[in-house]
Structure formats: structure tokens, C-alpha cells
């Protein structure tokens, strides 16, 4: 179980890792709905506040790009993407709250490609809980969590859920 302090620290870690790596070239932070967008917002705020850096911001809804559409009993609610900058040639940092199997990131890469051909795409995750099912690895990790494959990692974020917390629910 983690609370607001650990999550704040996680975002700080992410921000400083990204900062170390950034050149002066423009960068776009793109959060994956839902909750990845809120992490991206915080990250954007951190990156834009310390230097006079222009950071583009975008939100990606990957519902239409999932690989398990036919297996779901009810469809994921579609909220739409919002990428107001030009994806063509851009340096994009994809942001999600939890990295697990890697399937969401696969879907996000496909979705991005339909907006244009980015110059470079990196991946930043607040929490890496392991157990990948695809050859996808993050470039930046805020918090590393040891989990079992069947555990549930429940992330709550202030704007989406009313509080900041992470809970690992053990599979029974």
C-alpha cells in the first residue's frame, strides 16, 4: 500500500530521469487514458515549471486499438484522443500509470501511428509491476513493484478517483 507521498516521489523520479536525458529539442508528453493522462499532466507540470521548456501535451484513448475487443463482455468506454500538436516527426514520451503486460503500449503505438510518423517515441511509467507479454520495455520508471502475475495493482489518482494511492490486491 502506498500513499500520496510515494506517488509524488515517483513522479519526481520520473521527471528527473527524463530531464537528464532531454536535449533542447521540443518534446510532447502523451498520456494514455485513463490515469496515464493524469500522470502525464503532473509530469508535464514538473518539466515545464523548472526550466522554460515548451512541453506539448496530448491524451490518447486506445480503446479502439485493443487486442481483446472480442473477449470483453462490454466494450471499454470511448472518450477520444486529443493530440493538438503535429505528431509527424515529433519526439513523444508516452506516459501510463502502470506497465504490466505491455499490451496497452502496443495499442498506443498503433494509435499514434494513425496520427502521423513520430521522430522518436519513448515510454515513461509511474509504476512498473513486471510480467510482460510483449517485447516492450520502459525508458523511464518512477516506482518498481514486485508483484505476482495474478495480483491486481489498484492505482487511484486525485483527479480521477479522489485520492492518491496504490494497493496490491493478492490473488486469492
Amino acid at each position, binding site marked *: 500500500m502506498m500513499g500520496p507521498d510515494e506517488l509524488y516521489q515517483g513522479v519526481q523520479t520520473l521527471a528527473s530521469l527524463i530531464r537528464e536525458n532531454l536535449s533542447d529539442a521540443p518534446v510532447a508528453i502523451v498520456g494514455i487514458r485513463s490515469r496515464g493522462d493524469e500522470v502525464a499532466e503532473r509530469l508535464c507540470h514538473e518539466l515545464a515549471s523548472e526550466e522554460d521548456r515548451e512541453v506539448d501535451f496530448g491524451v490518447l484513448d486506445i480503446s*479502439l486499438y485493443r487486442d481483446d475487443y472480442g*473477449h470483453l*463482455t*462490454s*466494450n471499454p468506454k470511448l*472518450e477520444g484522443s486529443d493530440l493538438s500538436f503535429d505528431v509527424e516527426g515529433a519526439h513523444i514520451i508516452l506516459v501510463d500509470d502502470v506497465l504490466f503486460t505491455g499490451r496497452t503500449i502496443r495499442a498506443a503505438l498503433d494509435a499514434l501511428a494513425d496520427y*502521423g510518423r513520430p521522430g522518436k517515441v519513448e515510454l515513461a511509467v509511474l509504476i512498473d509491476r513486471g510480467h510482460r507479454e510483449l517485447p516492450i520495455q520502459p525508458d523511464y520508471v518512477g516506482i518498481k513493484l514486485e508483484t505476482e502475475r495474478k495480483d491486481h495493482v489498484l492505482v487511484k489518482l486525485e483527479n480521477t478517483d479522489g485520492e492518491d494511492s496504490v494497493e496490491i490486491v493478492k490473488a486469492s
Partner: protein
Amino acid sequence: MSVARKDLLDIESLSREDIDSILEQASPFKELFTRSVKKVPALKGKSVLMLFYEPSTRTLSSFEVAAKRLSADVTNFDVPHSSVVKGESIQDTIATLQAMRTDYIVVRHQMPGLPAMLSRMTQASVINAGDGAHAHPTQALLDAFTLKEVFPDQVNKRVLIVGDVLHSRVARSTSTLFKKLGVEVAFLGPGSLVPEYCAPEIPRFTSYEDAMKWKPDVVYLLRVQMERQKAQFFPSLREYHQLFGITSERLKQLSDAGVYIMHPGPVNRGVELCHEVMEYERSLINQQVENGIAARMAALYYLKPQTGTLT
């Protein structure tokens, strides 16, 4: 989470949750149309069968574009050239379709209730694209989506539906949905086409001037169905235009009052409306066509066929 809906047969059977979900999701689908790649892989590997027993260009191609933008495979069951002409019964046709393992069937037929019958015989999702004078639910959904774009809070807005209410599945579905959404609806038309027994709770007018005193926000013109003219429900098209059509003069009045115009298409120019209406700044007719694709994508995405799910 509610139980997934398999079919879209009429407006009456939809819950408020169904309606809100489809209408809300139509917007993100419409946003896709501005991308250079308008297609998404959501229904990749799924098949959609178009089963049209009545002529249609607009609805058929709207569904076709919607399905293709969702990456589904689309097959047109070409009825005029099919074995239906050779005397195959609808049951046998359905058995054939069942063997094709299609995931969605979009059906239009002159017989009311045929899509409902079909839906009970197949695991595929059945979408009613018009059955006789009964229902045309995707038309109603695209109309409601269009109305919501103009009036985000559509409650208590007034829509005057003009024309052949008696024979119109559009009037039936659209007025039912509008009323479910809190929109006020009234009918205008010759007494022969807007009979009292149609929907006694809906105000009806037989004179254009009286209807205007009701102060509608939108005038929704129904298509005059030329194919029904044999039965003589009104004396002449010219007279219909003079009495119930949007003439140049009436267009000026509507413009001054800020009234919007809708029409499900195809338009009979010089009958329901004059040429100038097509350029009228508050004509929503072209927007309805574009929204038709988005609303149908939302409907296809919302429904859940019972075919071949693994879990």
C-alpha cells in the same frame, strides 16, 4: 456494468444508458474523420452483412463506410440478384447467412418486425436499417446526435416534424427518441398523413401558420414518399409545397427566428423545401449525413454479437 446489448431493433427497447452511451461515443468517432487515417482497428476480423430488401443508397453506404472505418469486412447480400428472386424463403436465406458466420447483420425490409424475427434466429448482432413504417433507429440516433451538437442541453427544445408522419418510420423513431431525451415534439401535415391516432400525446397542426406560433427551434422535414403517391393522400405536390413546404418566403421567416432545418434525405427539391434551403446557414442536412457515419460507428461498436467469443 450492464448486460451487453446484442441487437438494435427500435428506439423503444433501448435503455437510457444505451442511448447515452451511443450518443456520447459518436463524438470521439466523429473526431477520427479529421485524421488522415480515418480507420481504427476496433472491429478487425469481424464481418458485417448488408441485407437490403428495399432500395437504399444513403443508409446502405453510410453503414458501409461506418463498418469499414471500424476495419470490419463488409459483404453486400445483393437481394435483387439473389435467390430471394428465385423464390427462397426468408428462413432459408437466414439459414444461409448463419452458415456464413457473419457477426453483424444490417437489415432493411418492407415488413415491420422482420429484423426482430431475424435477431431471434441468429447469434449475430442485428441492426434494423428500416422495417416498413415501424422503425429506423440509427436515423433517430444520428438525428439526436445532430440536435445535441447544436443544443448541448436539448431538454425542452422544440422540434416540429413536418410531412408524412403516417408512413414514416423516421418520424416514429426520431420522435420517440427526442421525447425520451426531453425534447418537445409536434407534427405538421395534411390531416390524411397526420391522423389523430398516430400519437395522441403529440400536438398536431394542419396549418403552417399555427405550427409557427408553437415556436419550434428546429423544423424537421420528412421526405414526401413519391412511391406512395398512387394512394392520393394529398391533391398535388405543388399544393403540398405551398401548404407545408419551406418556400423562399418561409425560409426568410425561419432565418429571422433562428430556426434550424433538418431532413433525413434524399431531398425532393421544390416539394419539401426550395433550392435556397440547401445553402441556408442553419440547415443541418449535410451535418446529418456526416453524423450518420459517426452514429452508426458508435452503434456497431456498442453492440455485442454472440458469435465466436472465447471467454
